[in-house]
Structure formats: C-alpha cells, structure tokens
C-alpha cells in the first residue's frame, strides 16, 4: 500500500502543466482527483516517475453557460456538478449522473476530466457525455484541438488523448425545446462502479413523438459507447412501452459484452436492455 518513489509538481497554469508533461512523456502522469491513479500507484500497478497535479489550477474548475453551450472545466469535481443549480435547470442529466458516483469523499475529490481521460470501462461520466454528444477540448504542445466524445474513447483505458495532451474542457450543446433526461445505473455493491449504466437524452417534437435520442452505455463493453441502433429505433416513435421495448433489444448490437466474476456477458446484456428501457421511460416522464 506504499507507492514507488515519484516526483510531484503542482504547476500554477495549464501551459506549465503541458510543458511538465512533455518533459517526460514516458514517466510523467497527470494527477487530477487521483481516485483511479493513486490506488493503482499504491498497489504498484502504476509507477509514474512524475505526477503533474492539475487539481490546484483554479481556472480549470468551472461550469459556465456561453451562447448555446455549457462549458465545464476538466477539474470540476463530481460534487460541484452534482450541486450546480445552473445544471439542475438546464441539463439535469449531469447532476443526476454525478450523484451516482462513488461516495461523498470520491465526489469531493474526483473530477469529470479525470474520469473521461481515464476511460474506465465502468466509469459514469463517459455514458453521460456520450448521450449529450459532447465535444472535448484537448491541449497539447502544439495548441488545442476539439474531438467529438464518440471518437474519443478508443479501447479499454485507451483514448484519443495523445502522450503530452491534457483534457481541458467538456463542451455540451445546451438542450433546447422539449427534452427529457435520465441516468439509470446498477452499481457494483462493493465498488459502486457501474455494472451497467445508461444515460438517456431525448428530444421531442411538438406532437410528443421522439425527435432524437442520445443513449450512452457504460459498464457493458471495454469502453463506453453510444447505442446508435437504439437511438435510430426510437426516433419517430411515440416512446410508449412497446416502442421502448423494441428499441432496447438492440442495445448490445455489435458489442462483445464484458464478462467477469460478478456478471456474465449474457446477464450484463440483459441488464443493459432492462435499464435502457427504464431510463427511456424515466426520461420521457420528465419531459417538460
């Protein structure tokens, strides 16, 4: 439970953090909330030479409305997202998802950027930002670039983040018109991680039919993914129980579901269908 030796730097600005990270691409690692990295270090499963702590860069933690977008800084903690009055009004999926993460201590320290950059196959944020079709702003030694979150998750714990790049901001298009959102999760009883987690963002036409659906699924595959086939099957329907049941049958299409001691792949896929349906029903019931 004692980590190997490492150096620690707490830069004051993001530019300094990028420079430090690039000073040792193999050995340096970004530290934000540390709720995945530090346990791995204590077990000596990870042995970085240098930790670059970005959680102390105050200007990286914010939740702002700007034009038709919601901007969230990478080191905004789960608790800040959970308790944001602004988000409760304009995008309640985010506080709802935040509330389901870990326990109070985890939510006080853990950050949205850390969760997305780590890409844990059972992390909660990946599902929520996929459902909301977010953009991610990455900053590296050659400047900034923006990636669609759907293209960001590559494989198990592997993202499009290149060595030397830091996730700076999450950008979400502000939901408008008639919409409803929900996050449904089956937490693992010991760790609280999602055995299955489903985030749903529905937009409705004036006649109450489904205009579009965004569905993010976590815990099921090696990475969180958008259930495109379910989204397509829901569009244009009146979102009643029959339509929802028919659509959720596609939630594992093209996916090789995880299997572990706690849940076999068949059981996981079944859970995913049940909870996707419940999330759709809950989102529909919340439409205003």
């Amino acid at each position, binding site marked *: 439970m004692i980590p190997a030796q490492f150096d620690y730097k707490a830069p004051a600005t993001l530019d300094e953090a990028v420079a430090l990270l690039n000073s040792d691409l193999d050995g340096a690692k970004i530290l934000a909330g540390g709720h995945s990295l530090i*346990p791995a270090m204590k077990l000596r499963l990870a042995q970085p030479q240098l930790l670059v702590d970005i959680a102390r860069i105050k200007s990286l933690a914010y939740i702002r409305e700007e034009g038709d977008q919601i901007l969230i800084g990478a080191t905004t903690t789960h608790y800040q997202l959970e308790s944001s009055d602004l988000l409760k009004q304009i995008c309640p999926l985010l506080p709802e998802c935040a509330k389901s993460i870990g326990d109070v201590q985890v939510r006080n320290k853990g950050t949205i950027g850390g969760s997305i950059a780590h890409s844990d196959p059972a992390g909660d944020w990946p599902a929520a930002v996929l459902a909301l079709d977010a953009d991610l702003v990455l900053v590296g030694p050659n400047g900034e*670039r923006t990636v669609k979150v759907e293209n960001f998750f590559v*494989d198990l714990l592997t993202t499009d983040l*290149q060595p030397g790049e830091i996730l700076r901001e999450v950008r979400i298009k502000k939901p408008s018109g008639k919409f409803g959102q929900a996050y449904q999760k089956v937490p693992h009883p010991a760790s609280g991680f999602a055995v299955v987690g489903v985030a749903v963002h529905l937009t409705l036409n004036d006649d109450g039919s489904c205009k579009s659906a965004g569905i993010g699924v976590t815990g099921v595959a090696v990475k969180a993914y958008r259930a495109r086939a379910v989204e397509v099957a829901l569009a244009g329907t009146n979102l009643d129980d029959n339509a929802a049941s028919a659509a959720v049958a596609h939630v594992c299409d093209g996916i090789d579901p995880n299997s572990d001691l706690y849940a076999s792949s068949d059981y996981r896929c079944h859970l995913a269908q049940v909870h996707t349906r419940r999330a759709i029903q809950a989102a529909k019931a919340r439409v205003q």
Partner: protein
Amino acid sequence: MKLEGSHELDAPRERVYQCLVNPEVLQRCIPGCERLEQTAENTFSATIKTGVGSIKGVFNGTARLEDLREPEHLRLVVDGKGAPGFLKGSGDLDLASTEGGTKVTYTADVQVGGTIASVGQRMIQGTAKMMAAQFFTSLAAEAKTAVGEPPPQHGFFRTALRWFSGWVRRLFRS
C-alpha cells in the same frame, strides 16, 4: 477464465504458421515483449513489459509449443509472473485457409492471480482481447512480407498517422 476469438489474416496459411513458430517474429508481435529466448526445443523464456493506460507491469515466464500439426494447429502453454500478479494457462490455435487468407481461431483457458486479479478482475478479459488484437495485427503484417525480406516496422503506421494528423491540424489552424 476462458478466452475465445478469431482473426482473419491476409496471408497464406503456411506462411502464418511459420510466423507463429518463429521466435524472432513472435518477439516482434507480442505487445511489449523485450526478450524471447529459446531454452529447449519448442520451449522459450520471455520478458514482457506491458499494460493498458497507466497500469503497467513486467512479467517473466516460459512458453512451450505443443501438439504441432503444421499448418493447421498448435498449442501454446504459458506460465509467467511479475510484480502485479501471475498468469498460467494454455491455448489452442487453429488455422483455416479462407479465400485470400487465413482464419486463426483461438480458445484458451487462463488463470490470473495476485494483485491484478483481485483488484482488476473486471478488466482482465478486456485487456486480453485488446492484446490479442494487437498481436494478430502485427502478425498479419509479418505474414505479408516474403521470407527473407526485412520485417515490418510495427510502430510506423501509428507514428505516420500521428504526424499526419498533427500536420493537418496545423494547416487548418493557420
């Protein structure tokens, strides 16, 4: 833990088989393999430094090829350990000729123990799948080169792609 899968390789079956039993080729294809030495007939000793994300470890172990039936079948028995845990198991590889290539089907039974199994249980299967995919992608590139030709550079495409995307990005920014 049971592992199953198959990969299609764009090379003739005989060639794929030769690659699978060639220690030099294997060393280049196994993700993170730093050392692979033959210690007896069909028996090898290896050092592999590998991991996913920030989780990394060094493993030392032995591998033995059994039940060699060129060019359709071989069996691989592995036994390794490192600081993060240990791994023990065996796998059968079956090679079938397909139109224009080879289909390799594998079934393996592997026991993983130690720290990595107690805390990383939910990710072991995903890690195994990812490494198998990396291995077969490299193997496909190896099998496509003719015997005696210089081996392919496995990191090359990724480096080229990274360079190219960086270049495109700079182009659009200016």
